[in-house]
């Protein structure tokens, strides 16, 4: 085994380990994504918290608890986003159209959810 072989082998093993970690993360790692006009933010679902985000018409509060997330409070009128209740599976989402706030979950093998 020549020195370059060794370097190549080590590099490949490192890359492989990274992709294994990424792959496992994708399977198990469940995150909540929040999109507002100012961008997309990601939060782990296993950390209980209440996040306040700025929307187009006011502040929305989003709760993360027991691996699930929901709109706790939204300044909109119809409250469709709050009625959506808890979301926890990959591809599930809740939207507040008047306030321009979207939240969704990343992590499982479904291509989409019909609703």
């Amino acid at each position, binding site marked *: 085994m020549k020195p370059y072989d060794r370097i190549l082998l080590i590099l490949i093993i490192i890359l492989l380990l990274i992709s294994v970690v990424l792959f496992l993360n994708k399977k198990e790692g469940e995150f909540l994504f929040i999109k507002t006009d100012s961008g997309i933010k990601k939060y782990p679902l296993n950390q209980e918290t209440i996040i306040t985000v700025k929307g187009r018409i006011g502040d929305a509060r989003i709760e993360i608890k027991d691996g699930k997330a929901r709109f706790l409070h939204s300044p909109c009128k119809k409250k469709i986003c709050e009625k959506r209740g808890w979301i926890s599976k990959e591809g599930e989402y809740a939207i507040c159209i008047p306030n*321009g706030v979207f939240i969704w979950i990343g992590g499982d093998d479904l291509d989409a959810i019909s609703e």
Partner: protein
Amino acid sequence: MWRKFKYSGIIIVILIVSFLSSCSPSNMVTKKGLYLGTFLTFSIDSAHSYVYSKVSKILNNIDKKFSRFNKESLVYRINNKKGEWVKVDKEFIDVLKFSIHMNEISYGAFNPILGEVESAWGFYDGNYRVPSEEELKELRNGTNIKNIMIDEERERVKIIDGELDFGGLVKGYALDLIKNLLEKEKVKRCVVNLGGNILVFGDKKEGFKIGIRHPRESGIIAKIRIFSGTVATSGDYENYFIKDGVRYHHIIDPSTLKPAKSGVIEVTVISEDGMLGDALSTTLFVLGIEKGEEFLKGKYPQVKAIIVDEGLNKHFINGAMDLTVP
């Protein structure tokens, strides 16, 4: 000799394994946007990511014709110029004629001219209320399909009474136009989620797995696997309000002008044709399980459906059971 190949052999194996694992759908690009008053998630193979801007154009164009809220739209103009002819185009007439056809074959269960009724219940603006029987009686005339007049030769439309609302099929129609575009662009793989209406397209040996939302809890109630086509779901959980312990949802039964009480709480339709599937999900919701099953088996044996009743039992029509996966 063997020693020389020992490590490079391992390396080659590792390279092959890494290559194979990178062939999975990770080379998909996902875009998100707001169209037709709902949320779009668009995933496409990265070589065709440029197609998204064309999809965006298609959706904005549909909005300009079929939205009841867009003040520039044809539907808005027709609704606000009762009794006057409004110039439209062939595409508009085709969709309108399809909606009238659906009304006729469904014994009125599908109705594209319920706008005033939806509005009276507050389902458009969130000012929810229960209209009185008298109020509903007055609105009855406006829900007659005969209020819609089409002049095909001069490409114009007028309504005498009532208000058009294409909410029951426009998302499905949008998926049909997107599908045509994907075919034209020779897209390899694409998944479109337009407000819960799904289109899957392209090669995926193992098929596309679609979850069907649980109507009462977080998560899904069923999982299906399809290789192409569209999936449309209508449920009583999206736009509703509860008053005096009664749940009032936005799927209106044209025969009562009240939220449909057919014993159904969710309908999923799996169809190659998106507009048909979308319209059928509402139609079956209104018809209920028995009438719905008879209707679908008689008229559209190629279309599959899953109906969830109030007891959360699933009813599979036209072999939809075969699509389910654990």
